[in-house]
């Protein structure tokens, strides 16, 4: 028993250096970034690059400027762009990945070759992918020259240099829209918790809190929301068509990865289950839609989390494809870099970094918690 204790201590001491390193490099640095984001480091150009810059605490000023300041419209467009990009990127990867996985699940001859071809872009650097696609998406070359190969007129779309924007909306409508969206989500959660789990006190309490939050949000949106505009005048944001090319390139790179995740899930479905369903008279379509797809739901969730956080962090692909200075293909991760290391606006860069962290944490933390908890249950 004593030996056991001693070995436990050794075990702790072995892990300790890593804990310290991660403690400093992850948690400590996040703390520093948050502190920096509450300062005015960089606002005074003479102090920006000083060895020990004199900075003042300015509270949430940087965040207020990012969301409601007149000069930071680029950040707001970037946020909107990231949301659009994430939606299309996820849809593309999941759709193509699932299709390829199902095709390969039919065990075609040369299965291994097909699989390897679809997965290889994942082994490339985003910078390599970006460089190739930058060339493929030249307005009068590359993809636009594919139709002439079969006798059709050349494509006209300017891809990365496009200045077009669709689905525009006023930033001033955002608070109300978010409140309504949040209120409806809370209402849904409340209904699920209160109807399905009335017996469980913890779920019941959560349901009641959700119901209250829903009422509060919707009431705010209906009564006060309309009178409150973050900006003194309207500011239109929307989906920049220049992003289509970036979506195509990123799906090209990551669809194979999604396929590999789905294939791992498919190989875990017991053969007997498929046979049973076929014996029961399920058609091929029914086999997939009724039996296999529901069993793949956890894989879809994992894939969405991993792809979603990749998409929020996307930086290198855009940098290599469209360059760091193209405002029409900008994303917050890239703006953070430019703001900080080109513009020397350290505090504002730190604020953008913090916002990115919050967005990623919103996706990842609940997922990590449920994963680790499931392992305890096992």
């Amino acid at each position: 028993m004593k030996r056991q204790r001693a070995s436990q201590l050794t075990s702790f001491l072995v892990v300790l250096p890593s804990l310290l390193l991660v403690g400093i490099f992850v948690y400590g640095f996040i703390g520093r970034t948050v502190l920096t984001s509450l300062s005015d480091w960089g606002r005074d150009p003479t102090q920006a690059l000083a060895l020990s810059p004199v900075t003042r605490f300015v509270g949430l000023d940087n965040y207020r400027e990012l969301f409601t300041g007149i000069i930071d419209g680029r950040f707001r467009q970037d946020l909107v762009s990231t949301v659009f990009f994430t939606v299309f990127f996820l849809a593309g990867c999941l759709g193509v990945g699932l299709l390829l996985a199902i095709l390969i699940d039919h065990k075609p001859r040369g299965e291994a070759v097909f699989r390897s071809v679809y997965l290889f872009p994942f082994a490339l650097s985003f910078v390599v992918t970006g460089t190739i696609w930058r060339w493929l998406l030249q307005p009068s070359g590359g993809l636009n020259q594919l139709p002439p190969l079969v006798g059709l007129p050349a494509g006209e779309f300017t891809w990365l240099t496009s200045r077009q924007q669709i689905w525009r909306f006023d930033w001033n409508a955002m608070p109300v829209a978010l409140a309504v969206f949040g209120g409806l989500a809370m209402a849904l959660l409340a209904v699920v918790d209160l109807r399905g789990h009335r017996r469980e006190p913890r779920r019941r309490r959560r349901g009641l809190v959700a119901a209250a939050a829903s009422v509060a949000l919707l009431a705010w949106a209906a009564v006060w929301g309309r009178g409150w505009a973050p900006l003194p005048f309207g500011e239109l944001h929307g989906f920049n068509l220049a992003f289509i090319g970036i979506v195509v390139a990123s799906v090209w790179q990551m669809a194979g990865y999604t396929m590999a995740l789905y294939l791992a899930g498919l190989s875990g479905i017991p053969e007997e289950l498929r046979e049973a369903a076929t014996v029961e008279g399920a058609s091929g379509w029914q086999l997939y839609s009724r039996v296999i797809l529901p069993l793949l739901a956890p894989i879809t969730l994992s894939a969405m989390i991993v792809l979603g956080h990749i998409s929020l962090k996307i930086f290198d692909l855009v940098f290599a494809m469209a360059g760091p200075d193209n405002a029409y293909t900008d994303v917050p991760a890239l703006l953070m870099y430019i703001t900080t290391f080109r513009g020397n606006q350290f505090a504002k860069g730190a604020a953008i970094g913090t916002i990115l962290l919050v967005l990623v944490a919103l996706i990842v933390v609940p997922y990590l918690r449920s994963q680790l908890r499931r392992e305890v249950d096992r």
Partner: protein
Amino acid sequence: MSARGPVRRGWSWRWLLYLTLVLAVALFVLPVYMMVVTALKEPAAIDLTTAWQLPRHWNWDSFAQAWTAFLPKLKNSLVLTVSASAASALLGSLNGYAFAKWPFPGSRAAFAFILFGMFIPYQAILIPLFGFIKAIGLYGSIWGLVLVHTVYGLPITTLIFRNYYVEIPDALMEASQLEGAGFFAIYRRVVFPLSLPAFVVVIIWQFTQIWNEFLFAVTLSNPESQPITVALAQLAGGEAVRWNLPMAGALLAALPTLLVYVLFGRFFVRGLLAGSVKG
């Protein structure tokens, strides 16, 4: 192995299956074809309207030029990737062993504490990291990047090794334990010799990730210590690009990880699956 699913019903379905598969192959390979073809053309022969055609004269010169220009950067990338992969794999192995086989009070929380580092957007630590690396005098040195990649590699390497070691039966350790072997003796005699597959998975994963990485590289290196990804982005991003050179460079930058992928595909996929947390 018999065919599964709906396709067993007729060869017209089978035909459609292969058609789709081959079409998808074409879509996936097209960009690579373009890369190789453009790299092999003479700069004067690169014309947007004839971009898809094979070169009239094969111009291997682009590769020679890219090779001379990129050789120092490739060396930087190699030193960085090999050192950081080895260091993070070794530390990850010890961590994983401790977490899997010698749980101590609070070890579960400690594991989660380390794991979270895998998901953070590095923009959230970039400014203090930049200051720190400068302060310890490693800015612009390849060793600064080695340190950074080792530390931020710890979560994934620890995770993969822990999940691997959990599967090693305790019975294998008990024999040694009865002989009085402790933490390190068991690691050396029992666990480490069984670790080869996990080491292959982790090193391949880290090699690919670090070789391909861009954000840290562009923030913390100077022209002398630049890894290949930064050099490539600069070459392709310049004004008045002659495209044969960036394409040849892209091929050079892609070759090492592609080679790893072709040679060790199976292990590569295992690392990929571990990256989505499921062990």
